[in-house]
């Protein structure tokens, strides 16, 4: 009997390769999508984890405003939680160089923790050498110099023995994997990049920061890591307090003989202490967020494919069992057992599913992370991920595919097998026709053309197929809406920010020390090239509400001066510009601080009442009236440059002014942010491909089965004189009806999916607008219909090929 089964199996295989392949393909796609997308987050995380481990990124960094010394390091090393402990000195300084000038973080190089990744050149070996940020400098800058400018305070200038450093190498740092470089109190608060100098050039005797790594290794972003980090932080805090106290006593003891005990204590003051974990590192936190986006997509998208895989597998196998009914009946009549008859079909479907699973799993785990990685690669300086095959996932997929294929096949087989052989040899009576619900609504039914009635009834004739078709089409449309919606919500915000909200195109920040004369002088530079300009106070500062504290840009403008530069509005409605103690804050900030109109917030120790919440997409702002230029010195100019002026030349000449600390061209900012968001185009492309694949698989499989089942019927209508067009539309019109229905149902479903995916994306800097444009809906449903039409086009050939003599054959 076994021999027979194998023989019969191979014959069936040969004669119905298409069917075998369709199970193979759908399982491969389902498993590929599921395993592949699920693997994206682990692959991304392990890439970062490996990078952090290689360059030994700190787990904790401790900071004391009084500084830290070697004794402190010894104290920390007594704790068993820590392995590598090393101090460093780091300060933000004004730096000038040929390539770029502005505020940089200058740090001393470390030997064990937080090692820079040298991309080009060599590590500094002399005390007047440095390596610099690869996002600012390039390979061609090696050999050039950077200078600590005289703008810096005397104290800062004295910290380093050298003023000019030679660049020996270009480096990336595990501490800065994203484009964020931190903030500073200097200038406008933003830092351009980092510079690592030789430790010997540091003249001081205390560290500004001690980096620590944990003695135990946990996976990045894991709960175990977080738990360990929490305990370790608590212990570190205790040690840090002791250290700070000791440091304070030493300093007081040193000063007391000169100033007296009390005065010395007053001068030294209480130190501010920080124990910061990796969550405080913007790059590490942003990356966690991005991996969360990927994993939320991974939770949504494969569901449809898995569902469709089960359904397709089921219809295909019950079709096969049905086709070979007579054969099954004959075998049974000959005395074969149910199990050995069923075995053939079980082997057929499970082998196909198994091969599909293997192909899908290995291709999926390799291709999906690669695709996703190309999207994120541009935003992070991280090495390519390893395409790890997850053994547990692998066995899960295998078991799931086997259970699914064996399950649905056994169900189809045994449903037929318990019939008596005599019944089995006779053909199954065709499914009886039935009136459909719509016929009860006479008004509608009577208006339909005859062929439309036939088609409608056919559509509802096979409930299972109709349901599958709807699930597939609906999923396709929903995925398309989600994809286009993601683009709408993310990509357009940049344009809105720079087209609708900001009406100026150049922003100049001036030094805090600038006098009125300086301001008058610098304004002369752009007077002829600008249409209008205004001086305001703008600086990053902590905004405090009753429940939270969040950093934002405070913009203080004199009465009626901001109207032409920043358009404050909410939805379509303009918001009154704040006066007195009122403040207008941006939407995302209001959300983060959980405040509403009428609530109060604290800005620079002053109380303000929120009088309006305005639309804003990039960064967070608080707008207030500038009533006191002592507190809010005018340090920033918003300029609307004439359209025929040379922006580059103008910026350059402004930069040369001694009072100017930096110049921002808004167009450049827009381009930079747009560049980093261009990854959305790829995401949308991936989504369109996926939904297309989904639609084609479903349509092809189901239409194929539909045609095979109705071969006789199609042949008959051809004999009756239906021409090509009529015969095709007799069968394929169902698909169009179902596509329209599925598409319409898919639209709201897509909105829900979009909402879910968007709600998983949380970035502080950008306020994504949760919106889907009308065009996205139109594109989604049109594409769905196009997919259907293309599939119908190919199915036409199949219908044309049906021979009319089919109609004469006896019913097997």
């Amino acid at each position, binding site marked *: 009997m076994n021999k027979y089964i194998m023989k019969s199996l191979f014959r069936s295989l040969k004669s119905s390769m298409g069917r075998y392949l369709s199970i193979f393909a759908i399982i491969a796609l389902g498993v590929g999508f599921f395993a592949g997308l699920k693997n994206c987050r682990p692959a991304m995380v392990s890439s970062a984890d490996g990078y952090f481990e290689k360059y030994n990124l700190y787990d904790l960094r401790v900071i004391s405003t009084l500084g830290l010394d070697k004794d402190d390091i010894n104290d920390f090393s007594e704790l068993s939680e820590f392995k590598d402990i090393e101090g460093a000195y780091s300060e933000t300084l004004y730096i000038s160089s040929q390539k770029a000038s502005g505020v940089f973080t200058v740090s001393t190089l470390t030997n064990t923790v937080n090692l820079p990744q040298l991309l080009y050149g060599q590590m500094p070996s002399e005390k007047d050498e440095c390596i610099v940020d690869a996002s600012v400098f390039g390979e061609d800058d090696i050999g050039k110099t950077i200078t600590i400018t005289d703008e810096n305070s005397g104290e800062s200038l004295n910290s380093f023995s050298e003023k000019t450093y030679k660049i020996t190498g270009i480096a990336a740092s595990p501490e800065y994997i994203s484009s964020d470089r931190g903030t500073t109190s200097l200038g406008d608060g933003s830092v351009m990049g980092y510079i690592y100098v030789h430790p010997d050039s540091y003249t001081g005797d205390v560290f500004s920061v001690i980096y620590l790594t944990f003695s135990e290794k946990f996976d990045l972003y894991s709960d175990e890591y977080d738990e360990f980090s929490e305990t370790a932080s608590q212990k570190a805090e205790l040690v840090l307090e002791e250290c700070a106290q000791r440091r304070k006593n030493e300093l007081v003891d040193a000063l007391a003989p000169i100033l007296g005990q009390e005065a010395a204590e007053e001068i030294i003051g209480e130190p501010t202490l920080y124990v910061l974990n990796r969550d405080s590192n913007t790059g590490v936190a942003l990356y966690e967020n991005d991996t969360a986006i990927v994993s939320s997509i991974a939770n949504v998208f494969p569901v449809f494919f898995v569902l469709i895989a089960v359904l397709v597998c089921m219809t295909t196998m019950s079709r096969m069992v049905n086709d070979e009914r007579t054969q099954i009946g004959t075998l049974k009549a000959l005395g074969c057992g149910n199990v050995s008859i069923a075995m053939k079909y079980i082997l057929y479907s499970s082998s196909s599913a198994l091969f599909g699973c293997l192909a899908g799993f290995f291709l999926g785990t390799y291709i999906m992370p690669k695709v996703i990685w190309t999207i994120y690669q541009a935003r992070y300086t991280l090495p390519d991920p390893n395409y790890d095959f997850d053994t547990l996932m692998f066995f899960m997929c295998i078991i799931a595919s086997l259970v699914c294929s064996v399950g649905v096949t056994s169900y189809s087989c045994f449903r037929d097998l318990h019939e008596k052989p005599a019944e089995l040899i006779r053909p199954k009576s*065709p*499914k009886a026709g039935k009136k459909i619900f719509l016929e009860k609504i006479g008004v509608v039914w009577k208006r339909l053309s*005859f062929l439309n009635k036939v088609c409608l009834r*056919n559509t509802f004739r096979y409930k299972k197929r109709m349901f599958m078709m709807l699930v597939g089409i609906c999923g396709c449309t929903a995925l398309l809406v989600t994809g286009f919606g993601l683009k709408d919500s993310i990509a357009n915000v940049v344009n809105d920010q720079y087209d609708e909200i900001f009406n100026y195109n150049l922003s100049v920040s001036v030094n805090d020390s600038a006098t009125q004369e300086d301001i008058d002088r610098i304004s002369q530079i752009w007077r002829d090239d600008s249409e209008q300009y205004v001086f305001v106070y703008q600086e990053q500062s902590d905004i405090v509400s009753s429940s939270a504290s969040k950093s934002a840009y405070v913009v203080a403008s004199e009465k009626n001066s901001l109207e032409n530069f920043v358009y404050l509005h909410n939805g379509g409605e303009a918001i009154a510009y704040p006066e007195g103690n009122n403040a207008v804050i941006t939407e995302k900030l209001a959300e983060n601080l959980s405040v509403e109109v009428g609530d109060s917030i604290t800005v620079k120790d002053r109380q303000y009442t929120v009088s309006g919440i305005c639309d804003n997409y990039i960064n967070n702002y608080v707008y207030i009236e500038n009533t006191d230029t002592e507190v809010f010195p005018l340090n920033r100019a918003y300029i609307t440059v004439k359209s025929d002026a040379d922006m580059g030349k103008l910026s350059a000449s402004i930069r040369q002014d001694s009072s100017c600390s930096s110049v921002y061209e808004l167009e450049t900012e827009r381009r930079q942010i747009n560049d980093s968001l261009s990854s959305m185009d790829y995401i949308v492309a991936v989504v369109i491909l996926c939904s297309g694949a989904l639609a084609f698989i479903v349509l092809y499989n189901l239409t194929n089965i539909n045609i095979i089942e109705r071969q006789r019927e199609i042949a008959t*209508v051809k*004999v*009756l*004189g239906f021409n090509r067009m009529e015969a095709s539309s007799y069968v394929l019109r169902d698909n169009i009806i179902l596509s329209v229905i599925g598409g319409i149902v898919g639209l709201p479903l897509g909105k829900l999916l979009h909402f879910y995916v968007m709600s998983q994306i949380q970035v502080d800097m950008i306020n994504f607008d949760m919106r889907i444009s009308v065009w996205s809906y139109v594109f989604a449903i049109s594409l769905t219909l196009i997919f259907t039409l293309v599939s119908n086009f190919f199915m036409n050939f199949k219908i044309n090929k049906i021979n009319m003599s089919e109609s*004469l054959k006896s019913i097997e």
Partner: protein
Amino acid sequence: MSYIEVQNVKKDYKSGELKVTALHDVSFQIEKGEICVIVGESGAGKTTLLNILGGMDTLTEGRIYVDGQEISAYNSRQLTEYRRKDIGFVFQFYNLIPNLTALENVEIAAQLNRNSQDAATVLGQVGLEHRIQNFPAQLSGGEQQRVAIARALAKNPKLLLCDEPTGALDYNTGKTILKLLQDTGRNTGMTVVIITHNKALCDMADRVIKIKSGTVSSSYINPTPTPVENIEW
């Protein structure tokens, strides 16, 4: 020229290297309004002849004229038109569309032609006025074949082609169906061609054509056709 002229028809089937001749040197005529029985054993080439007469297949050599038109020269579009307007087909297994009611099964053919008869009227003529809203599964074999005949008649064809119309029916039901066909031919003057392996049916025909080994072995005119009810087999 006769209403139907079949002249020296040859049909070869090629499958790979193999060439099988299904029909050769087939010639006969049928006059308008005749009931013609084409009889032969299975494998004799009946079905091939039927396919060619019905415009479902093309021939290799020879000519066929129906009502003066050379259908053997038609292209596939013209053949579709021919099936649509000129041929009414009655199948052995009825081939009703399971999802349509009796009435709709007739309508589907009727709506293909402008000068069709009213579907309900034709169903009345075949004695099914009371079952017109039933689906095929709710009808007996004989009733289903009546619907199939009504479907064929509804478009007023030049030629009613019946392929083993009683093959799937019991003796008595088969007889009533044949009677219906005979009466229809007599009453409407329609040309009816019945293809069968049952030699007993020769007695009901105006003209009998015997097919053997792919060619016409004999043909004759029956001057005194027997009414179906008097035929036994």
